[in-house]
């Protein structure tokens, strides 16, 4: 972590929570948790509400599919930390290998027609010009995607588009491959939910 305040500058309540996470999981706390619990009134409190809603709230996308969407956006944004964590969750949920390299081959269609069309839509949004042509939407609809699913996709995209930049800028990482798996499993287990008490 490139800012020392995020390693040791938390208020007492949040510091106790991070210590408990460290003891319970036997690994350093998720850097996203460190960011979210540091001065939570600035960002973390509202941010975590949005994340929980986008990733585990009602949606036509399954939770595992949303992990793939998040990992895909993270790959586009060249965020190795988020790619590692969210491919880890997707892999665990889907019981099949999910890696950044496999996501790079999305055009082969091995994730199925709905996700392939959605990846194309997301790529247009994330890397294209400020105005996205409606043809990208038409192609996604033709693959069977509803506008609600595409809208949900965009909010998952927003979540990752934000945190990818924060992770890259502030130097998020993990120590070992085992730590990566632990962080992914912990996040999946808590379902992105952080008690409100810790966000005050």
């Amino acid at each position: 972590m490139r800012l020392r305040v995020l390693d040791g500058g938390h208020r007492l309540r949040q510091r106790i929570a991070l210590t408990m996470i460290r003891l319970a999981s036997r690994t350093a706390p998720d850097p996203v948790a460190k960011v979210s619990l540091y001065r939570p009134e600035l960002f973390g409190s509202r941010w975590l509400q949005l994340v929980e809603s986008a990733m585990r709230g009602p949606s036509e996308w399954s939770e595992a599919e949303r992990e793939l969407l998040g990992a895909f956006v993270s790959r586009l944004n060249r965020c190795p930390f988020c790619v590692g964590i969210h491919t880890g969750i997707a892999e665990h949920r889907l019981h099949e290998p999910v890696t950044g390299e496999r996501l790079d081959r999305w055009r082969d269609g091995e994730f199925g027609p709905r996700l392939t069309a959605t990846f194309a839509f997301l790529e247009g949004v994330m890397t294209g010009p400020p105005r996205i042509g409606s043809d990208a939407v038409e192609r996604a609809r033709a693959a069977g995607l509803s506008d609600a699913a595409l809208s949900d996709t965009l909010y998952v995209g927003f979540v990752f588009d934000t945190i990818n930049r924060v992770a890259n800028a502030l130097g998020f990482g993990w120590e070992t491959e085992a730590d990566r798996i632990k962080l992914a499993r912990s996040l999946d287990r808590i379902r992105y939910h952080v008690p409100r008490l810790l966000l005050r």
Partner: protein
Amino acid sequence: MALRPRGLPPPERLVVVLRRITGRTLRAMTRGDQIAGLSAGLVDTTGVTARELREAALRGVRVPDPWTAYVEKVRHASYGITDQDIEYVVAASGSEDAVFEMTLAAAVSAAADRLEAGLRALREAG
């Protein structure tokens, strides 16, 4: 056999009920409202940096030095940010908190632009 007063649901049932309540709360507030709230928190919360500076970063308009290059990098090439970039803005601003605030504002701003582009495409497709 666990001792539990009669009529009280088992703990796992309570978890399900709590999740349903949380889900309703999440649905009641639209995601647009949530993002508006996120932006408001970044601007309105008392911070180390001036409110106007955070607002400019959030609106995607040019910010003064020492932030100009850093904010651009967060928005367009965050993968290229180095230890030296962070050391520079920390030293120039004199505060890690300032860097924290500006990083968040720039990141949310760039993500909001893309979200808006996607939502606009969805609207225009009819």
